[in-house]
């Protein structure tokens, strides 16, 4: 199996791409095209796999710059990366690469160059195409697809893997149909509808070797960094002085505090980067007057942390009300904070007082020391990823 390294995707693919198969990232043209392919390429280069990057829409020099933008160094992979240059001849520039597509308007020329590169690479090569759409445009759609079918066969014989970025411009239906047929797996990449300012999502729509199709995952591309799953909104609620701010602060990589004399006076914001995820946290102050804000934000949130002071049983009634107001079948995790203090309530007591069942996990934390905080995050994002609300 070849991993893509894209968070969660390998899980949906059933571990990755089996040797001999091909995968297409079918990308909405308003989304930048090559990011998923290049993320996969880098992931495998890091693992020491032999990779061939077929470049047809930007110069090899630009590829190296793109690597830099992501915070990666291309020179590091001198031994296991072949850049196959289909760009320089197109613009009449001299190429410094060993493998060059001499006639970029001819798919046969692509095939020749790829064949040479495959023969030169030791075993099971991973071939990533920066832009299949560009090859289609240059070589003619039908010819190009016939050529690609032959290339896939060749890669299959060598037990390699073919990975293609494809910008889904409004091609003819028949062409799109054929494209969908000739690849073993298709991952659709689209901007998030209705919230086009937020990010993108990927949805596996075909996996010939079995796996999980139809589920969408929101992600963003970070430079540097690469691809991360993106959760636009998690709200943090809880009674006054339960430790919400401390919890957010200890979880966040970036945090905007808004406190006056020890009490939070407005919605606070934090950004978490953890295990391939990026999430935005919104802390809603515990005072009564913030109730309307909480209800409003609760409607568009993907997850909720209810932070409670586990030593104050009398506050749990209030917490129970908060939870009832904020929650609309959104995944929720109870953060039982201040575990370092005397007289913490047991899990059963908390459940009983809050009136929640086993479906709502309780995670014990000491936010001031950061204990349990990351665990709580992991538990919540896993629940979010499985939820109906998240997958559009």
């Amino acid at each position, binding site marked *: 199996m070849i991993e893509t390294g894209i968070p969660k995707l390998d899980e949906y693919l059933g571990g990755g791409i089996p040797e001999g198969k091909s995968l297409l990232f079918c990308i909405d*043209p308003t989304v930048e095209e090559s990011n998923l392919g290049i993320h996969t390429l880098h992931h495998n280069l890091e693992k020491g796999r032999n990779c061939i990057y077929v470049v047809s*829409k930007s110069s090899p020099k*630009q590829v190296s710059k793109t690597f830099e933008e992501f915070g990666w160094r291309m020179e590091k992979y001198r031994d296991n990366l072949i850049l196959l240059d289909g*760009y320089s001849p197109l*613009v009449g520039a001299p190429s410094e690469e060993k493998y060059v597509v001499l006639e970029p308007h001819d798919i046969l020329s692509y095939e020749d160059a790829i064949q040479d590169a495959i023969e030169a690479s030791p075993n099971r090569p991973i071939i990533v195409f920066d832009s299949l759409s*560009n090859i289609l*445009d240059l070589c003619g759609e039908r010819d190009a697809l016939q050529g690609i079918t032959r290339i896939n066969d060749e890669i299959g014989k060598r037990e390699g893997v073919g990975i293609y970025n494809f*910008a889904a*411009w*409004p091609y003819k239906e028949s062409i799109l149909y054929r494209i969908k047929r000739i690849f073993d797996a298709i991952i659709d990449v689209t901007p998030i509808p209705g919230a086009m300012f937020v990010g993108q999502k990927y949805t596996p729509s075909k996996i010939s070797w079995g796996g999980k199709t139809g589920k969408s995952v929101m992600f963003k591309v970070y430079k540097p960094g690469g691809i991360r799953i993106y959760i636009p909104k998690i709200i943090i609620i809880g009674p006054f002085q339960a430790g919400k701010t401390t919890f957010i602060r200890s979880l966040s990589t970036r945090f905007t505090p808004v406190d006056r004399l020890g009490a939070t006076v407005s919605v606070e914001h934090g950004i978490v980067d953890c295990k391939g995820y990026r999430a935005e946290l919104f802390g809603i102050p515990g005072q009564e007057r913030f109730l309307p804000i909480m209800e409003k934000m609760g409607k568009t949130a993907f997850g909720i942390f209810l932070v409670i002071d586990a030593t104050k049983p009398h506050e749990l009634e209030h917490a129970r009300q908060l939870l009832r107001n904020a929650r609309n079948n959104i995944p929720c995790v109870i953060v039982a904070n201040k575990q370092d203090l005397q007289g913490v309530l047991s899990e059963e007591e908390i459940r009983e007082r809050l009136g929640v069942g086993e479906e709502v996990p309780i995670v014990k934390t000491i936010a001031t020391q950061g204990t349990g905080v990351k665990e709580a995050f992991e538990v919540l994002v896993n629940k979010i990823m499985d939820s109906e609300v998240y997958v559009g």
Partner: protein
Amino acid sequence: MLAKTGIDRLDELLKGGVPYGENVLVYAPPFIGRDIIIKRFALSGLTEGEPVIFVLTDKSFIEMRKELEKLDKSFAEFEREGKVKYIDVYSPSVELKEESPYVTFIDSPVNRERISAAILQAQREFIEKSERHRVIFDSLSTLIVYSDAKAVFRFLQVVSGTCKRLGATSLFSMTRGMHEEIEVQTIKHLMDGVVEMREEGARLQLRVQGCGEVISRNWIDYLLEKDEIKLTGAFRMSRVA
């Protein structure tokens, strides 16, 4: 509602300007005033408070900025106010390296995906601040030369669609004489209007197709004087012309 072109008599011909949200092709041979229409259209937008996005494939953003500063002293001010964004598809290919917070560089005209993503990105920033904006794409010809008209057609389908949806009034340019007739027709098909320019012997002429209501659709003489286009042909009473 109409977007002024910034050329007085052309606006008159257009009964006030180009309808908001439409996209117009300027189709002209080199050196007979296409650049002036583009620049005036941009400056007119800025004066009206509409931010402008330039997509440049044949000159660097530095050149464009200089030329605009020459035409309008307040251009630098517009730029400082964040009302101008350049998507420069030219500089990287000739290894010009000047940076600016207002520019996004695209390494190659083949990289249409990045161009469309960059336009959208710039639009997102503008529509938060302004109800309307303008997009200037100079020129489509370069894109066609690097691949083909069909690919550019698909690209335009997406870009012009987004422009419409986000309320941009846009101007695309194409060089007359560089393309097959079928290519020109293909591109025109996606436009709401065309301003066509030609050289007829010693006379320079332009005519408008589409663009909502106009006074005349005949060829109209114009003069090129330094940085101005002056329509000299009569169009109020077209039979006189």
